[in-house]
């Protein structure tokens, strides 16, 4: 299942290198608070600079060692990944981000949550259910009941049990 190929390590190394440089520069350019006459050794940018430098070293080491990975390991990783489902992953990401970063706050909590649970369960149950019209209608009805009852339960628990003002 891991996607730990040499290329992935090289790309990650490059991203981390940029992050390390940004952290180092960010710490260096950070306000030194001279106007407040603080001790020069306690400037706020000190630790970010150290962390940035450490990340630069680690990312360079990661890039350098990435090319040494054996082809057998890459093959094993590829074989492992073959059993996994990218389409399942993408649908999960789209539905979850759509709910957490899209629907929530725009729709009231209960309908947004019920809609998310309904779509998620229905999509992943669809292929496993029978193909007859009656069984499909039954699936949709059961999923809708499950989604609405769970969303209502959690809304009631948090709103009245924990006094949370729901989004």
């Amino acid at each position: 299942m891991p996607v730990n190929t040499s290329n992935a390590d090289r790309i990650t190394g490059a991203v981390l290198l940029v992050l390390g440089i940004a952290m180092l520069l960010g710490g260096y350019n950070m306000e030194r608070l001279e106007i407040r006459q603080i001790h020069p050794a306690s400037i706020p940018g000190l630790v970010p600079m150290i962390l940035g430098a450490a990340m630069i070293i680690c990312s360079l080491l990661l890039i350098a060692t990435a090319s040494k990975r054996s082809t057998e390991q890459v093959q094993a990783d590829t074989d492992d990944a073959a059993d996994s489902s990218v389409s399942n992953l993408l649908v999960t990401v789209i539905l979850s981000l759509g709910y957490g970063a899209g629907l929530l706050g725009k729709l009231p909590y209960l309908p947004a949550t019920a809609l998310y649970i309904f779509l998620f369960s229905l999509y992943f149950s669809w292929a496993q259910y029978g193909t007859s019209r009656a069984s499909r209608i039954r699936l949709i009805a059961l999923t809708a009941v499950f989604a609405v009852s769970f969303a209502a339960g959690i809304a009631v628990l948090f709103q009245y049990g924990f006094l949370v003002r729901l989004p």
Partner: protein
Amino acid sequence: MQALHSLAEAVLNLLTPLSLFHVAWATLLGIFVGSLPGLTATMGVALLTTLTYTLDRDTAILVLICMYVGAIYGGSRSAILLNIPGTPASAATSLDGYPLALRGEAGNAMALATAGSAMGTLVGIVLLVLLAPPLADVALSFGSFEFFWLAVFGIVISGQLTGGASPLKGYIAGLLGLMVAMIGSEGIHAHVRFNLGIDDLNGGIALIPAMVGAFGFAEVLTVMYRPDGVLVDARSSSFRALPRLIDLWRYKITIVRSGIIGTLVGIIPGVGEDIGAWASYAAAKRFSSERDQFGKGSTEGLTAAETGNSAVVPGALIPALTLAVPGSAPAAVLIAALFIHGVRPGPMIMIEQPDFIYSVAAMLLLATIAIAIFGLSLTRVFIKILKVPRELLMPVVFTLCVIGPYALTQRLFDVWVMLVFGLVAFVLRRMNYPMAPLVLGIILGDLLDKSLRRGLTLSNGDLAPFFTRPISLGFAVIIFLTIIMSIPWVRSTLARLIGRTRTAAPALKGDNS
């Protein structure tokens, strides 16, 4: 003796009907969470923390500890029956548990796992009661210099031990965690750092949304990405609930050794239950007379792994309570929960709340009794739980991941933090970056930052005290050696040198004779 007396007193205080009711439901929920692949102990403790805001302090901590103990134990169910560890802590369990289940001995495997978990936690509780108070005393002599090294030590050792074949990735994960901790208002001059112009970042990244994302949302993505597990045919297995006492007696040394190893691994910052299980398993294999059976259905291997991972739980609480440095990821969430409920873990705990450590030990003891009772009596119920389809469970889990962090501050920003951490953690985990150092980095970032700058201010910019004070020097030497030993070139050179010495020694012996 005084320690055991205080423990007995704490147990008696907890023996009220209401407390026992909380122990029962929270442990049962923990076993349920742990047994389902996709629900980890960290996630369970993090989500339950959001449900304990309205509870009083002791009840809240009791409930969270029962969830922690139950979830670590519960992971063995799916490891044995599905060959998928319910939590990472049970990875070693599946090596021998699943082959046993395939041979029709699922019941015996689960009974042994229950007994091993209970024994492991008991060994850990004894060590917690004996070690935590003196450790808190030692920690009282820590100053800024020592705390700085303690934070670095936690990140380095956690990165080294959880990074597996690539400690570098463990270090990078730790650095990422420390970098996240740099966001927001810093602890000495209240200067806001790296808020990227977003006001919501002024207070920094809260631990609970980050943890729920890294261990909850990322786990939902992992479960939906990988193929579904196949439940072992329950009809062909015997479900004798009680372990054979002869087995437990035969493995008494393995149980005690695994319990001690697990607890010691737990004390090491940010290492966690999975390493505890692997270390115990490796030690048991080394000393076992049936080592060729390990990995093929060895009851000793299964017992060692389960004893080891459960012993980590009390072990992880030792540094969490006395140093505010978590021994594992769930312990990190527990620290956050302690602060929320007004307990300040750290060296002052034995002065401010001297009975608290014993209360925690008593809570662990009740949770252990509960896992033993539930584990031995509800075997068939847990098999039914494993049949809950993931397409129903995962949207429910994600909904809880959303509402949990939101309930803490009632702002949608924390939901977005959870989402970002979930996506990033999923990608990092696919590339074999361990999550424990990242979490530890977020927790220890503030301590490291403040201790370094405070120390430098005290010494007027002089670095010498960081290397001349005895405890500081000890930490510095260990950290230096750990980093040096993680360099492949150094390791291979050392191995060559040791190999040469070994081959030279018999030759010399031969010459002498």
